[in-house]
C-alpha cells in the first residue's frame, strides 16, 4: 500500500534521515521506533507532504491498481488520497469545539460548493447532516460523545489525543499515521489504546503506521517494525526479530 524508497531528508547541513526504505502492506500495522531525534517524525512529515525530501520516492496505492507518487504533492492532496495523521505534540483546533474539530476532518470530502453551502441548498443540507452524524459516531467511538460541545483545548491531554484520532478518521483515510499515540499514558491506558487501535483498524479497514516509544505497545500491536537511529534504518522485521537484534539493543542502550 505504501512504498518508501531511498528517502533522504536534510535540513541545511543536517541529515535528518538518509536512504530510508520501507514497505507497508494493506491491512498491516507497522511500527517505527528509534531513540529520540532518530528522524521518525521527519519521515511522517515527508510522507504527508509537510517536507519535500532531498531524494527518494514514495508511492501509495490505496486500491491495488492505482499508483500515486506522494513526493511533490501538497499535504492536503495527500490527505485527500487517503493518508491522514496525528501529531506528536497534538495539534488540535484548540479554540473550536470537540465536535467542530471532527466535523472539519470531514470537509475535504465535501462535494457541494461554497455557494450551495451559504444558500443551504438541499444537496448541501443532506451532506452536512451526514457529516454531522459521522462526526458524532466517531466521537462515540473514541468515547468523547459527552464532551462534544467543549473547547478542544479544555480537554485533558489523553482525551486530546483521542480527539486527534477521531479527527483523522473523519477524513476517511486508508492509511493512518499515528505519531506516538500512547505518549503520557499509564500501562492500563496503553492496554486500552492497543485494543482501540485494533478495533478501528478492523472497523474502518485501515492500514496503520505508527511511531511509539512504549515498547509493550509496539511489540504487541505491530506486525512489522522498522528501527531508525540517527536517520538510518538499522533493522526491520517482526517483533521477535527486532527484540533479538543486537544493533537495536545497542542503539537503545547506547553501547559503543
Amino acid at each position: 500500500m505504501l512504498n518508501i524508497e531511498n528517502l533522504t531528508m536534510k535540513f541545511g547541513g543536517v541529515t535528518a534521515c538518509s536512504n530510508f526504505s520501507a514497505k507497508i502492506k494493506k491491512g498491516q500495522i507497522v511500527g517505527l521506533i528509534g531513540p529520540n531525534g532518530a528522524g521518525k517524525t521527519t519521515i511522517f512529515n515527508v510522507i504527508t507532504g509537510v517536507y519535500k525530501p532531498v531524494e527518494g520516492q514514495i508511492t501509495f496505492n490505496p486500491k491495488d491498481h492505482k499508483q500515486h507518487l506522494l513526493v511533490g504533492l501538497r499535504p492536503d492532496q495527500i490527505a485527500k488520497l487517503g493518508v491522514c495523521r496525528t501529531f506528536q505534540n497534538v495539534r488540535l483546533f484548540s479554540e473550536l469545539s470537540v465536535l467542530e474539530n471532527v466535523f472539519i476532518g470531514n470537509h475535504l470530502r465535501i462535494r457541494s460548493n461554497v455557494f450551495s453551502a451559504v444558500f443551504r441548498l438541499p444537496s448541501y443540507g443532506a451532506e452536512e447532516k451526514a457529516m454531522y452524524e459521522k462526526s458524532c459516531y466517531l466521537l462515540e467511538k473514541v468515547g468523547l460523545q459527552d464532551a462534544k460541545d467543549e473547547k478542544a483545548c479544555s480537554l485533558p491531554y489523553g482525551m486530546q489525543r483521542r480527539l486527534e484520532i477521531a479527527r483523522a478518521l473523519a477524513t476517511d483515510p486508508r492509511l493512518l499515521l499515528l505519531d506516538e499515540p500512547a505518549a503520557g499514558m499509564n500501562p492500563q491506558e496503553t492496554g486500552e489504546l492497543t485494543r482501540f487501535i485494533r478495533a478501528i483498524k478492523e472497523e474502518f479497514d485501515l492500514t496503520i503506521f505508527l511511531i511509539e516509544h512504549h515498547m509493550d505497545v509496539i511489540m504487541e500491536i505491530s506486525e512489522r517494525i522498522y528501527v531508525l537511529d540517527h536517520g538510518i534504518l538499522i533493522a526491520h522485521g517482526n517483533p521477535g526479530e527486532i527484540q533479538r537484534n543486537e544493533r537495536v539493543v545497542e542503539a537503545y542502550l547506547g553501547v559503543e
Partner: protein
Amino acid sequence: MKIKEKSSVTLLILLALTIVGLFLANKFLDSYKIRIITLSGIYITLGLSMNLINGFTGMFSLGHAGFMAIGAYTVGILTMPIPMKEMNFFMQPIAPFLANVEWGFLPALLAAGIIAGLAGFVIGAPVLRLTDDYLAIATLGFAEIIRVVFTNTQSLTNGALGLKGIPNYTNIWWSWGIAFVTIWFMTVLMKGSYGKAFLAIREDEVAARSMGINLFKHKVMSFSFGSFFAGVAGGLLAALLGTIDPNMFRISLTFNILLIVVLGGLGNIVGTAVSALVVTIMMEALRFLDESINLGFIQLKGIPGMRMVVFSVILIAVVLIRREGALRKAKRV
C-alpha cells in the same frame, strides 16, 4: 452546528427590534442623525467583511480601503447620469464604453461587489501565500497601488478630481438592508463546512492542511468574499456621500475598520456589528473635540485631531488589556 432554537428566536427578536428602531429613527430624527445611522450600517458591512478575513480566517489584511475604492468608483461611474458624467470629466472625456451607461442602484452595487471580489481574487492569488506581517504590508501596498492608479486613470476615474454628483441612492434601508444581508451571509457561512475550514486555518495551518484543507483555495475564497462585501460597502458609501476622490481611500479608512473589528472582537459577528454602530456614533459624537463650541459666554476651542487621538488610544488600550484574548478568543454565533 445544531441550530439552537433559543438563539435563533433571540436573533429574530433582535432583528425585529432593530427594524422598528430604524423605522422610528427614520421618522423622527433629523437628517444629520439619520445619516449617521445610515453610515453605521455601512460600517457594519465593512467590519464584518474585514472580520471574515482577519478574524475568522486569521489572515492579516490591510487592503480594505482599496477594495472600497473599487466599489465606490464602480457605483459612482455606473449610476451617474450621463450629463453629469460630461460635467465631471472636463479634463479628459470619459472612456467611451462608460460614457452612455446609467445603471440602477442594485445592479451597480452588485457590480461593485463582483469587481471588488474579482480584484480580491486576482490580488489574493499571489500574496496570500505570505504570512502575517508580510501579508499585511503587501495588502496595504495593493490598496495604495489602487489609489495611485485611480489618481492617474483620468478617463476612467477622473483622476484626482474625483467624482461629484453621484446620485444619493443610499438611505437607511439600503445600508441596513445590506448590513443584514452581510450578517446573514457571515452567520450561515461560518456555520457551514466552509466556514469551519476557515476557522481551522486560523487555528492551525499545519493541522488544517494535513486534514486535507486546501489552504490556498480557502484563503482566496475568504479574501474574495471579504473584498466583495468591502466593494459593496464602498458603493454604498459613494452613493451616500455623492462625492468621492482617491484620497478618501487612504490607510486611515482601513484603520477605522480595524478599530471596529478589534473592539468587536476578531471572529465575533454580533460584537462587530455592535462595535460598528458604537464607533460610528462616537466618531460623530466626539466631533466636538475637533471643532470649537460656542457656549454663548465662552468660546471653547476645539483641537483638530483630538478625536482620532482618542480613538488611537482606545485601540491601543483594548489591545493591551485583552492581549491574547482580543484575537484568540473566538466567540461564535
